[in-house]
C-alpha cells in the first residue's frame, strides 16, 4: 500500500529531523567537499622543483638548450652537474637527488634518426616523482621548428620503474571514483542509521500500530536520502569542474542514470543492513565493514589489474567497482551507458537482490 500523503508526512518528518541533526547535516555537505579537496589536491600533485642532477655528454648547443628548457620548466630543479652517467646514478641511489637528466654523446645523430634522444632517470620508489617526470617527458619542450619529440623512451638504460601507483593519476581521474566512495560512505550509513534509529528509539513500535504501511515507512525514510545523494553528486561535479577543470565528456543523462542506479544500490544496502542490526552503533560497524573494501578494492585506490584473484572476486561483487568503471567510462572517455552493459547489469542485479532480501526481512509489520 502506497499513499502519497503518508509518505509526504514521513519525508517531512525525516527532513525536519535531519535539519536539527547538525552533525549529519554537516556531513552531507562536508564529506564530499573535504574528500574532493583532499583527494583532488593530494593526487593532483602539481609537483615542482624536484631536486635533480644532469650529465651532458654531448656538450653541444642543442644539449645546452635542452638543459635550459628543462630548468625553465621548473618541474626539475637541476642542482648538480656530473661528468659520468655512473655518478648520476649514484646521486639518485643515495637520495641526494630524485631525478637525473642524461644527454648522450650522439644526441644530434639520435635526433636526426628520430631515436630516443636523451634519458631522464628517476627515483622509481617515489610515484610522485615518476608521475611528474613522465608527464614532463610527454610534453614537447621546444616550440616551432626546433621542436624535438622526447617521447620515445624505449632506450632507457635505467627504466622508469615506479613501485607504487603504476597508473598515472590526476584529480580528473579521481573525481568520478570519488563520487562512488562518497555516496557509499554517506548514503549507506545514513539510511542504515535512519531506519535503525526508529527501531532502537522505540518509535517503530508506535509506527507499526498506526495505519502507515511498511512500504510507506521505507519509501518515506529513503526519499530524503536519494535527494541527499543527488545533491552530493552535483556538489562534487560542480567543484570538480570549477576547481579541477574536470572534463565531462559523456552525456548528462547517462551520468544521471548511472548515479541514480548507484544511489539505489547504496540505499538498498543500507536498508538491508538496517534489517539485520539492532542498534545504530551496530549499523555503523557493519557499514564500516563494507566501506573499507569499497574504498580499497573498488579500483579507487589500487588498480584492479594489480589485485590478486581473491581480491578481484570481492571487487567484482561491490557495486561501487562497477559504478566507478561506469563513471570513468562516461565522464572521462565519453562512453554511452549502453556501451557498458556489464556494469549496468551488475548494478541492477545488486539492487534487485538486496532490495528483495531487505523486503523479505522487513515486510512483516511486526517487531519480530
Amino acid at each position, binding site marked *: 500500500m502506497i499513499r502519497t*500523503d*503518508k509518505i*509526504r*508526512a*514521513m519525508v*517531512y*518528518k525525516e527532513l*525536519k*529531523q535531519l535539519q*536539527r*541533526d547538525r552533525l549529519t547535516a554537516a556531513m552531507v555537505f562536508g564529506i564530499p567537499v573535504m574528500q574532493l579537496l583532499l583527494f583532488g589536491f593530494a593526487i593532483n600533485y602539481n609537483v615542482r622543483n624536484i631536486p635533480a642532477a644532469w650529465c651532458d655528454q654531448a656538450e653541444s648547443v642543442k644539449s645546452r638548450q635542452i638543459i635550459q628548457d628543462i630548468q625553465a620548466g621548473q618541474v626539475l630543479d637541476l642542482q648538480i652537474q656530473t661528468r659520468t652517467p655512473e655518478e648520476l646514478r649514484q646521486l639518485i641511489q643515495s637520495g641526494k637527488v630524485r631525478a637525473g637528466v642524461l644527454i648522450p654523446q650522439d644526441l644530434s645523430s639520435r635526433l636526426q634518426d628520430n631515436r630516443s634522444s636523451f634519458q631522464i632517470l628517476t627515483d622509481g620508489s617515489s610515484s610522485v616523482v615518476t608521475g611528474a617526470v613522465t608527464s614532463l617527458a610527454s610534453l614537447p619542450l621546444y616550440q616551432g621548428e626546433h621542436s624535438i619529440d622526447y617521447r620515445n623512451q624505449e632506450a632507457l638504460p635505467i627504466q622508469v620503474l615506479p613501485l607504487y601507483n603504476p597508473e598515472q593519476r590526476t584529480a580528473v581521474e579521481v573525481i568520478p571514483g570519488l563520487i562512488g566512495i562518497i555516496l557509499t560512505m554517506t548514503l549507506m550509513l545514513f539510511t542504515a542509521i535512519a531506519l535503525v534509529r526508529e527501531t532502537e*528509539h*522505540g*518509535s517503530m*513500535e*508506535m*509506527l*507499526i*500500530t*498506526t*495505519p*502507515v504501511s511498511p512500504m510507506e515507512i521505507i519509501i518515506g525514510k529513503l526519499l530524503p536520502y536519494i535527494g541527499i545523494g543527488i545533491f552530493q553528486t552535483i556538489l562534487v561535479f560542480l567543484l570538480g569542474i570549477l576547481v579541477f577543470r574536470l572534463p565531462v565528456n559523456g552525456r548528462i543523462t547517462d551520468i544521471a542514470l548511472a548515479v541514480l542506479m548507484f544511489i539505489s544500490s547504496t540505499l538498498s544496502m543500507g536498508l538491508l543492513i538496517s534489517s539485520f542490526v539492532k542498534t545504530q552503533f551496530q549499523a555503523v560497524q557493519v557499514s564500516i565493514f563494507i566501506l573499507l573494501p569499497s574504498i580499497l578494492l573498488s579500483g579507487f585506490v589500487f588498480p584492479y589489474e594489480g589485485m590478486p584473484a581473491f581480491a578481484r572476486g570481492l571487487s567484482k561483487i561491490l557495486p561501487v567497482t562497477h559504478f566507478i568503471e561506469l563513471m570513468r567510462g562516461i565522464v572521462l572517455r565519453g562512453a554511452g551507458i549502453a556501451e557498458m552493459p556489464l556494469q549496468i547489469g551488475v548494478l541492477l542485479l545488486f539492487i534487485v537482490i538486496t532490495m528483495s532480501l531487505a523486503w523479505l526481512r522487513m515486510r512483516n*509489520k*511486526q*517487531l*519480530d
Partner: protein
Amino acid sequence: MTDAAGRNYCIRTDKLTRKFGDLTAVDHLSLNIPAGEIYGFLGPNGSGKSTSIRLICGLLSPSSGKVEALGYSIPRQAEKLKSRLGYMTQKFSLYQDLSVDENLRFIASIQGLPKKIRESRIRELRRQFHLEKNRDQLTGTMSGGQKQRLALAAAIIHNPSLLILDEPTSAVDPESRREFWEYLFELVGQGMSILVSTHYMDEAERCHRLAIIQKGRLRAEGEPRKLMSGLGAEVFLAHGRSDELIHWRKELVSHNDIPGCTQIGNSLRIMITSGRKNPEAWLSSTFPFLGKVEQTRPNLEDVFVKATHQDHIQEEGRL
C-alpha cells in the same frame, strides 16, 4: 464482541502464549476484557505485561492461543484494528527532536486525519492536555509529565475505540499520575475502552477490573474491591523494634500458612491463610515473641503478595 450473556468485550484472549526461546513470557493467558472500562494489568518487572500488550496490538505473533481485539482476530486482521487502536508504548516513542506541534501533526497525518480537521483537532488536544505553552518546544527538552501528556494526546488523536497504555506513568511524579488518571476516566466517560499496565498498587486500585500477572501467568482477576474482600487470608499488624522485626519476619515467612509478611516502619503486616477459627490466638501462640497483634483490612498489595506468593517461596528457597 458480545458473549452469550450479552456482555460486551473489547479484548478476549484464549490460552494466549508467547515464547522467546526457552522463556515463556506469556503463559496460557485467558482474559475477557469488558468494553468501556479501565482494565489493569498489574505485575512486577518481566511478568509479561508488555509482551501481552504487544500480542494484543498485533506487534508480536502468539506461539499458541488466540487473541481478539474489537472483534478482529489478531494478528491476521491487525490492519483493520489499526485505525481504531491507540497505543502508548512503555518507552516514550515520539520524536525528541521534533516540537510538540510537529509530533502531533506527524501522527495526525500518519493516522490519516483529514486535512481539514487536523489543525482544529491538534488545537483541541493542546488545550485538553495543557500543552499550549509547549507547542514549539522540542519534545526532548520537556519534563516527564509533559511528555506523558503529549504521548497520550498523540495516542488518542484519531479518537480510537480502544486505548492501550503500557506503564504510562512509570516516569512521572504522583501529582502528574493523578492528573493522568483523571484524563483516563474522562476518556472512558466518552466511551473509550482502556487497557493499562502498571506496577503501582494505587493505580491498580483505580481500575474497574484488574488482572494480576506474574511470570506470564494470570494469578488473580476481577474488580479490585472484590479481590481485596475475597483475599482468602486475614491480615494482622504486629509492632516492635525495627531490628527485632527483621528476625521476626524471617521466622514468620518460613511458615506454610503465612503467604506474606511485610515490614512497614515499626510494624509487621502479617497475612494468614483463612480457615482457622481464631487466627489471632493462633498467631500469638505460635509466635509468642510477637506480643499483641491487631487485625486490619486487606489491601491490594496483600492480594498481589498472596497471588504471587507461590513463586516467592520457590525463589527464596533457591537463594
